[in-house]
């Protein structure tokens, strides 16, 4: 029940936000929607399945460029482009996922890191399609004729509607047999396999689904910025996504929402804290989070509320205390 209330509150807040905040904040929250979709994919892949990806910016790049190229070169509408972006990115994700099967832990991190680093040079290389270094400019999204909203508000609602759908679909997938298999493969692969879980298909599918989500996110990033260029999809984007997932918390989908808000606003806050070196603030925040709240903001809040609840004598007080490290998403041995 509590969950239904929380979800309800989130939906209401998102729905009325454009009416109460200035338009540039609405604009910022379109990016939040895009990041939330991408981070959701990472939570499923890394949090629930233990595969570390430092390369999901590459899938966002694919999604963004599919929409941009179709719109810019062929004049196709966005509502055709976005599903195609999801498909293309998902297909690419399945291919990478199949390769990733052979790479454990930190090796996968390295390989996906490589993918992220190489992305801009590919985008630059195929100039005739991608516009090369200069990128492609797009038309700003317009609201359908007859609607009393601005193009920006329209994009905001569409982005959040799709984000909602992505969360719902992911929840359904993860709750069922698929999710059980994923978690089993993460926690105890040998037992899972001996119970008949096929690790290859499940792990690859998890990769594919996370890529679909990243592709959609990339499409919205492109439409919101109304511009794509290799500079948009540097490896820093991939790292930022992972940071968002970790800071938000890998245990629940709420982590995606919180993480997206954090990565959207932390860089702006960081330069207010220290205008001379925003990245110092960014880096130190990350390290401190890892040292003291390794299960992310959502995980930390959950522990906090649990502790508060326990002080009050009540039936719900009887809950085992979960040490931070044990509640972390990815349980792998530190050393090989």
């Amino acid at each position, binding site marked *: 029940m509590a969950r239904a209330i929380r979800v309800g509150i989130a939906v209401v807040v998102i729905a009325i936000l454009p009416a109460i905040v200035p338009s540039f904040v609405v604009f*910022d929250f379109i990016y939040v929607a895009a990041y939330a979709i991408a981070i959701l994919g990472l939570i499923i892949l890394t949090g629930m399945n233990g595969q570390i990806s430092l390369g999901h910016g590459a899938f966002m790049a694919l999604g963004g460029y599919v929409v941009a190229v179709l719109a810019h070169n062929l004049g196709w509408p966005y509502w055709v482009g976005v599903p195609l972006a999801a498909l293309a990115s998902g297909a690419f994700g399945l291919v990478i996922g199949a390769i990733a099967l052979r790479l454990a832990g930190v090796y996968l991190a390295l390989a996906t890191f490589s993918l992220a680093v190489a992305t801009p040079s590919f985008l630059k290389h195929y100039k005739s399609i991608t516009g090369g270094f200069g990128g492609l400019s797009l038309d*700003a999204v317009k609201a359908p004729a007859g609607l009393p909203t601005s193009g920006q508000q329209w994009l905001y609602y569409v982005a959040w509607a799709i984000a909602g759908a992505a969360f719902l679909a992911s929840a359904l997938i993860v709750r069922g047999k698929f999710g059980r298999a994923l978690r089993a493969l993460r926690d105890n692969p040998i037992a899972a396999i001996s119970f008949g879980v096929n690790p290859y298909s499940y792990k690859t599918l998890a990769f594919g689904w996370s890529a679909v989500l990243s592709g959609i996110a990339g499409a919205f990033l492109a439409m919101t910025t*109304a511009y794509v*260029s290799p500079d*948009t999809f540097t490896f820093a984007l991939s790292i930022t996504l992972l940071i968002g997932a970790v800071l938000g918390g890998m245990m629940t989908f709420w982590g995606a929402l919180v993480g997206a808000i954090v990565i959207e606003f932390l860089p702006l806050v960081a*330069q207010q804290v220290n205008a001379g*070196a925003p990245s110092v603030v960014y880096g130190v925040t990350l390290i401190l989070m890892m040292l003291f709240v390794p299960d992310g903001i959502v995980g930390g809040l959950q522990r906090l509320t649990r502790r508060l609840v326990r002080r009050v004598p009540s039936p719900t007080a009887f809950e085992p205390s979960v040490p931070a490290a044990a509640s972390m998403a990815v349980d792998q041995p530190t050393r090989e």
Partner: protein
Amino acid sequence: MIPVYRKAVTGILAATFALAVTGSAVAPALAADPGVTDTEIVLGGTHPYSGPASAYGNIGKGIGAYFSYVNDRGGVNGRKIKYIDKDDGYSPPQAVQIVHQLVEQDKVFAIFDTLGTAVNTAIRPYLNQNGVPHMFVATGASTWGKDYQKFPWTIGWQPDYQAEAALYAQDILQNHPKAKIGVLYQNDDYGEDYNAGLKRGLGKHQEMIVKMASYETTDPNVSSQVSTLKAAGCDTFMIFATPKFAIQSMVAAAQQSWHPTTYLNNVSAAVPFMNAASKAGGPAAVAGVISTIYLKDPANHARYAGDAGMKFYNEIMAKYLPTADKDDGNYLYGVSIGYTMVDVLKRAGKDLTRKKVMDIATNLVEKDNPLAYPGVVIRTSPTFRYPITQMITARWLATDWSPTGLLVDTRSMTMAENK
């Protein structure tokens, strides 16, 4: 969380306030443009203070220093300039978000000196749709001058890369008509603009280009490219590179005992970079290199010892950025472009509107920019929006750039090209 929260709260307050104001229907009589009050002009900008292009962040700091200087002397027509300058990390989406915030929240009067071609391409449509002046962008791509009909609110400042390269081509045709040209260029729009200008300048003599080699900003060094050009038998070396790679390529050529006639693009020709190359590759690495100048070089202490403009620059730096390395030409660029901006605002007079400022920026003749190379006039017209078109070619002699001719105006070349 907290800042978001705060934003939301301020947002709600602001919205309520706006409702209250409009509700009471006592709107101010004057329909003044945003960002101008009786005492203040608000300008916005973004620079890369983090990320790969952070070296250029010093341009923003130079601008800030100059604006403080102006404000301490009473401001512009009685108004102080408030310059809101933020870090875009050289990322187009981040720049777009910041610019939305600057325009919609901070209500800036104009966006001034955003840096980088990708960043400016990304923010240009939004600013033009909203009629916000997008002034004196810090990039030399030719599109800022060329596409003014589509984007009337945007204007560049520095010489465009194509014109500069065309000038080198002219110099080659005049002085080395039998040259075998080898080109090293950065593989992006920056390098490609230079290549286009070189080809344009060579005209029907394009076959003089024997070999072109590109590098990526992710390359650790360029020695392989330099040996390719040497092996192709080139005797003329065009370096269209950012400073680090330009230094590397001059050093690599010297180390491979290759001594071609070398042309070096202006961006990389500041005295400290030449000294660095000379130190690492020996004086032969830089002897006789040819480049162009359009601004004074703060590291060239000997040449500008008695120069009034340089004294003015040194004073500003000493007072407002005392710990900064004032030999860094980026600061000087910032002060110089800030001077043009203030000049335009001054000429626009007490009644500031965005339209008026754009009109003045596109009908400008500025002869007294203290940091432009002596004789360089910053000049625009509504149909010709390349503010700086004059340059002088110079040759590196031991410790200093020595001008080799007269100021050249590339204006007519660019006009012919745009026809």
